[in-house]
């Protein structure tokens, strides 16, 4: 079980009659548990389109997406309840402003479970659990979501999806617009949720530092095509990174610079500044 993309394409057509393929011939397999995947690529590479196919918000114009046993194709199948697929795969959008609408945090988080016909008592429990998963305590339950800070809103919006208890959680650029410190705090949170619940988590991001430091698997899209699917180590140590016009992590770039300027022989593939500093000290001791 999980999500399987089989030769999936999505073609947009507009009134000017120019059509273009947002994603093209994607083959991809995502397990229903224990995945921690980064989805990277430039703006317009089709990342968001791909994500929307994962919970049947979009239908392929070609090929098929199997979502936990249900086959989603161009044609609507009356036997499939597409709404129920969204209970298996939760999608969190970039701006919490797009989803918060209730007068209290509790009611807002309960919106999802109630839509899926969970009874009200159970929905309350789910809301509480989801809120604690995103690192907010019960005192937030009765607060107005619109009076929260940006970061808190983001957490509440993530809790709103977690309360549905999806098997797979997809987040569209959750760290964009945050400062580096906020980005790390949020990434630690996702990493925690992943460890605690074993849910598969897929995160769309531009930040190569985060990709290198946190993820088990990276999927790269370029102009709608899947150009890489593997570990971050493999990605950053090959020339695939240049072919896709992607950046190297900052640790690697800094160490490469030192190698060049000081003629050192540092192993540049270090994931954190601490590891990088250790490597520099190790090599300098030898000299």
């Amino acid at each position, binding site marked *: 079980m999980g999500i399987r993309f089989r030769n999936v394409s999505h073609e947009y057509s507009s009134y000017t009659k120019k059509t273009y393929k947002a994603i093209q011939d994607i083959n991809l397999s995502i397990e229903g548990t224990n995945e921690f995947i980064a989805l990277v690529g430039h703006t317009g590479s089709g990342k968001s389109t791909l994500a929307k196919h994962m919970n049947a918000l979009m239908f392929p114009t070609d090929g098929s997406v199997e979502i936990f046993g249900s086959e989603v194709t161009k044609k609507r199948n009356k036997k499939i309840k597409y709404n129920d697929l969204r209970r298996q795969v939760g999608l969190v959008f970039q701006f919490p402003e797009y989803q918060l609408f209730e007068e209290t945090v509790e009611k807002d988080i309960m919106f999802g479970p109630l839509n899926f016909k969970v009874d009200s008592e159970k929905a309350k429990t789910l809301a509480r659990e989801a809120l604690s998963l995103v690192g907010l305590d019960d005192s937030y339950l009765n607060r107005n979501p619109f009076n929260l800070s940006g970061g808190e809103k983001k957490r509440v919006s993530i809790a709103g999806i977690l309360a549905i208890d999806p098997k797979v959680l997809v987040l569209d650029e959750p760290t964009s617009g945050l400062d*580096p410190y906020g980005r790390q705090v949020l990434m630690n949170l996702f990493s925690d949720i992943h460890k605690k619940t074993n849910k598969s988590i897929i995160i769309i991001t531009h930040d190569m530092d985060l990709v290198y430091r946190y993820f088990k698997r990276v999927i790269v899209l370029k102009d709608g095509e899947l150009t890489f699917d593997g570990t971050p180590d493999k990605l950053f140590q090959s020339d695939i990174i240049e072919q896709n016009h992607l950046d190297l992590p900052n640790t690697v770039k800094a160490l490469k610079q*030192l190698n060049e300027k000081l003629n050192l022989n540092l192993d540049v593939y270090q994931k954190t500044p601490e590891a990088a500093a250790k490597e520099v000290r190790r090599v300098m001791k030898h000299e």
Partner: protein
Amino acid sequence: MNMIDVQNVSFAYSEEKLTLNDVSFSIKKGEWIAILGHNGSGKSTLAKTLVGLLEPQSGEIHINSTRLTEETAFDLRKKVGIVFQNPDNQFVGVTVRDDIAFGMENLCVPREEMLSRIDFYAKKVGVEEYLDKQPSNLSGGQKQRVAIAGILAMRSDILIFDEATSMLDPYTRNDLIHYIKTLNKEGFTVIMITHDVNEAILADKIMIMKHGEIVAFDQTETILKDKSVFLENHLELPVALEIANLVEDEEIRRILWEYVSET
């Protein structure tokens, strides 16, 4: 000569809390200042007082030796242009041409003059191909460039960027920041409000704000050496400098500093 002089400025949205608390500083012509701080530190409020969108309850702001008041705001705003965070919420025109013209229309610039300025500044910021395009056909980065062209066309010489890059992807953001760097080299005074140290590092001077007060304001290189300011304010140093701090070797520090300030 001081381009901007801020003396003991305080501002409060409500009675309970001062958003700006007795802020004083000055900026020289042609300088590039980065104002760093988290949300709620008062940095955006400061920017709004500098263009006269908000009037401080106490203190004075002088721009080019003229005091900013309700009466002088219209004239001083010709000198100070501001680009906001959300590219969509500052695009007034139906097309790129209309949007660049908007500020000039308000200044009653004659039409012939407007047309020639639009051509000139559209070319300057690199949007000359899109003059007839509508905002929905532009990327975020292109919209921000249009906003820059709009204020340049008003002949502003102080440019304020209020988190103008925070909604862009890293690649577009880099492009825009390098463009801002070029503008600064041409002589424009730049004030860049940001929460990203990686951006602030390109400025001549960095100001760090917290709870409406200035906690540090100095040359960029000096400020970056003071680790405690960054730690206390939860500001993350650029990775290369963090490595330099951990290694504690002068040579390494010098090379990494050069590397960071170049890119």
